[in-house]
C-alpha cells in the first residue's frame, strides 16, 4: 500500500523523528535528570538520620507499586483495589525463596538474583491467572471484585502457614548480596543507607521502563483502551490482551514493591496486605498524577512523607493533642484526616495531581519573569 503523498526528504524526516522521540529532549531536562540522580545518590550520605532514611525507604518501595498501579489505572483505565494482594504475593515469594532454611517458616536461602526477579514474576503470573475473570467486569463491578481479591488473598496468606507463617507472620531476612555488593551494608554504610541505593535504583529502573512502555506501541494501546474501548477495538487493539498485559505488569511491579517493602519492614503478617494498603496506592496515583509516570513517584513521596512532616512540625499546629491521654484530635488522627482530605481535594480541585501542578509551575518559571 505505498501511497503517493507529498513526502519530505527521508533522511531529514528520520532525524527529526529521532529527536522528537528523545526521552529528555532538551539540554535543560537532561541536566535536570542528571542532577536529580546525583541528588538522590548523595542523599543517604548527606542525611544520615535513620528516621528520614527509613521514611524514604518506604517511599521508594511503595513508589514501585504506585508506578505499577498507574499503568493499570492511570494508563489502562482499570480500577483496582486489589493491589495490596499482589504486594503480598511478591513479599511472600521473596520470603519463601530468600529466607534462610533454618527459620520458621523455612525459606530456601536463595540469593537476591533469584528471589528479587521471582518476586516480580510470580505475582505477574498470578495476575495472568486472576485477570481474565476480573477484567470481564467494568468500572464499579471491577472495583468491588478487586476488593474481594484482598479479602480472599488474606485468607490464603493466613492459611498457607508453611510459606507465610500464618497469622504469626514471618521474619523477612533474605540475603541482600549481589556478588561482592551486600546491600545489608555497603562498605562502611548502615543497613538503611545501603538499602536506600538498592530500593531507589529499582525505582529508577522501573520508572524508566514504565516511561518507555507508555510511549511505545503497547502503552498507546493501553491508553486507547482507557479512553474509548470500542474505538480501540476498531483500530485493531485487542482489549483482552492489553487489559491483561497491564494487569500482569502492574501485579509484577506490585510484587517487587511488596518484596522491598517487606525487606524494609523485616517482618510481615497477613494483616499487612489489607484494604488500607490498597487504598494508599490508589491515593498515591491520584495525588501524584494519574496517567503520568512521574505521578507514581510524586504520589508515593507525598503520601509517605506528609504525615512524617506533620508529625515533625506538630509543635506549631494548634488544636492537636500532645499526648495519648489528652482529649481531642490527636496527631495520627489529624494525619489520617489529611490523607482522606488530600484524596478528596485533589480529585475535586486538581484531578491530574501533583504532576500537573509541577508542569504548571515549570511553565510558569520558563516564562519567568514574564509571568503573564
Amino acid at each position, binding site marked *: 500500500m505505498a501511497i503517493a503523498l507529498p513526502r519530505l526528504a527521508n533522511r531529514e524526516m528520520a532525524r527529526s523523528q529521532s529527536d522528537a522521540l528523545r526521552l529528555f529532549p532538551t539540554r535543560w531536562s537532561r541536566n535536570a535528570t542528571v542532577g536529580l540522580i546525583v541528588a538522590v545518590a548523595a542523599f543517604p550520605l548527606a542525611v544520615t538520620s535513620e528516621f528520614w532514611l527509613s521514611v524514604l525507604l*518506604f517511599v521508594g518501595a511503595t513508589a514501585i507499586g504506585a508506578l505499577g498501579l498507574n499503568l493499570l489505572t492511570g494508563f489502562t483505565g482499570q480500577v483496582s483495589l486489589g493491589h495490596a494482594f499482589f504486594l503480598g504475593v511478591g513479599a511472600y515469594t521473596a520470603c519463601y525463596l530468600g529466607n534462610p532454611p533454618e527459620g520458621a517458616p523455612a525459606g530456601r536461602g536463595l540469593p537476591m538474583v533469584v528471589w528479587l526477579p521471582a518476586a516480580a514474576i510470580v505475582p505477574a503470573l498470578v495476575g495472568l491467572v486472576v485477570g481474565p475473570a476480573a477484567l470481564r467486569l467494568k468500572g464499579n463491578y471491577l472495583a468491588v471484585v478487586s476488593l474481594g481479591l484482598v479479602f480472599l488473598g488474606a485468607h490464603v496468606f493466613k492459611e498457607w502457614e508453611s510459606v507465610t507463617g500464618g*497469622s504469626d*507472620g514471618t521474619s523477612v531476612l533474605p540475603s541482600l548480596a549481589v556478588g561482592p555488593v551486600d546491600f545489608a551494608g555497603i562498605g562502611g554504610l548502615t543497613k538503611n543507607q545501603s538499602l536506600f541505593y538498592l530500593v531507589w535504583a529499582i525505582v529508577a529502573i522501573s520508572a524508566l521502563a514504565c516511561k518507555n512502555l507508555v510511549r511505545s506501541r503497547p502503552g498507546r494501546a493501553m491508553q486507547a483502551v482507557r479512553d474509548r474501548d470500542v474505538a480501540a477495538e476498531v483500530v485493531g487493539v485487542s482489549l483482552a490482551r492489553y487489559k491483561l498485559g497491564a494487569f500482569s505488569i502492574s501485579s509484577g511491579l506490585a510484587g517487587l514493591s511488596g518484596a522491598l517493602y517487606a525487606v524494609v*519492614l523485616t*517482618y510481615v503478617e497477613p494483616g499487612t496486605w489489607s484494604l488500607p494498603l490498597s487504598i494508599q496506592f490508589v491515593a498515591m496515583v491520584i495525588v501524584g498524577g494519574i496517567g503520568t509516570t512521574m505521578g507514581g513517584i510524586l504520589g508515593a513521596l507525598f503520601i509517605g512523607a506528609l504525615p512524617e512532616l506533620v508529625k515533625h512540625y506538630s509543635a506549631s499546629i494548634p488544636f492537636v493533642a500532645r499526648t495519648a491521654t489528652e482529649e481531642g484530635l*490527636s496527631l495520627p488522627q489529624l494525619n489520617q484526616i489529611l490523607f482522606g482530605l488530600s484524596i478528596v481535594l485533589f480529585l475535586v480541585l486538581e484531578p491530574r495531581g501533583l504532576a500537573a501542578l509541577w508542569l504548571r509551575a515549570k511553565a510558569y518559571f520558563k516564562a519567568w519573569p514574564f509571568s503573564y
Partner: protein
Amino acid sequence: MRHLSRTAVASGMAALALVAGACGGDGPSATGTTGDGGSLKAAPGFDPATNTIKVGIISALTGSGAPIGKPLTAGNEVFFNRVNAKGGIAGRYKIQFEERDSANEPQKAVAAYNELKGNVALLAQTFGTPSNKALLTSLKADGILAAPASLDADWVREPNLLPIGSPYQIQAVNALTWYVTEGGGTGKKICALSQDDAYGKAGLEGVDFAATKNGFTVASKQSFTITKGAEAGAAVQSLKDAGCEAVFLGALPSDTAALLAIAARTQFAPQWIAQSPSYIGALAASPLKDYLARTFLVASEGTEWGDETVAGMRDMIADIAQLKPDQQPDYYFAFGYNQANAVVQVLEKAVALGDLSRSGIAKAAEEVGTLTFGGLTGDYRYGKAANRVFPRETTLFKVDPAKPVGLAVVKKSFTTDAAKEFKIG
C-alpha cells in the same frame, strides 16, 4: 548532624562496654560511685546537660486497638509523672516520654521505631504481638531494650524485651486447675473457645497443660477469626451441642460481647473462664451484665480496683487522684502503670551502675534482680534472659457490675502446683 554524632558516640560506647564485659565485670564506665550521676556520660536518649532520660512509647492510639492502647499509655504517663514529681530517676534524672502511634500495625511500628531509636534510651512500651515480632530483629541489631505490652510467653527469653506479668498460659493453667479442684468443676465437661492467632493459641497451650496435669480431657475446642462482622454463632452452637459446662475463652472484648450475646440468646450458660484481655469494664455496663454476673470469670492478676489493703493499689489510686483525676478505673491502665514501674526500676539500676548507654541498660536489666509492683502484679526475677523467672500467680475475678471495672475478687493471687510446673521454650 546531631544524630550522627550521637550514634557514633553510642556505638563507640557499646564497643567499649563489650570490651569491658570481656575483661570480666567492672568496666571503666561503671567505676563511678553509685548514684553519683555527675559521672554519667551522654548516651542516646540521655542528655547529661539537662539530666533528662528520654524513653519511647509505641502504642495503639488509634484504630481498634486504641481502647486498650490509650489507657495503657496513660498508665505509663502517670507512673513516669509520679517519678518525675519526686525528682526523677535516682532523684535527679527526669523522664521524658515520646509517644508514637502504631495503630497496632507492624509497619507503622517499624516506622515509629526508626524515628525514635536514635534518641531514646529504651522503649517503655511496644504494643501488641505483631508489632513486637516486627521490631525484634531491629531491637537485637540496635541493642535497645523494649517493654512489650503483650503477655505472650515468647517474650520471656528475649534479652531485648522486658516483659512483666504472668503469661496467658499461666492464667489458663491456674484458672482451670482452680476450677476442677475447688471451683466446683470436678467431673464437668470443659471446653475452649479461642481466637485463631498467637494470642488465642497461648491460652490454649495453658488449657492443654492444665488438662494433662489435672487429668481431664477438653471436650471441644472451637476457634473463631477476629469477627470483623462475621458470624461467630456456629462456634458457640457447637460448644452448646457438645454439652460443655465450662468454657475457657481467649478473645478480645468486642468479640467477647458478640459471642456471649449468642450464648445468652440460645440459653447456653456454661461457666465462662476468660484470659484477661477478653474482658473490658464496659461489658459490665452493657445489656449483657446480668448474664456475665451469672457466668463469667476473668483470670488476671493483682487485686480489686480500689482495694486499699494492697500497697500498690493504694499508691496507684493516689497517683491517679493527683496526676490524672479523670482516669476511669481500667486494668489496662494498671498494666501500663506497672510496665512503667518496671522500666523505672531498670533505669534506677542503670544509674546505680553508672551507665545509661544501651549496653548499660541491658546490663541493668540483667542485674536488676527482682522487680516488684506492690502487689499489683507478680514479682518478676530478672537476670540473663535464660534465667528469668516470671510470676506464676493469678487472681480470679467474677463480674460484679457494682464494683469499679465491674470485677470482684473470687480468689486473690494464688499459684497452683500445675502452674509451677509449666515450662516455656
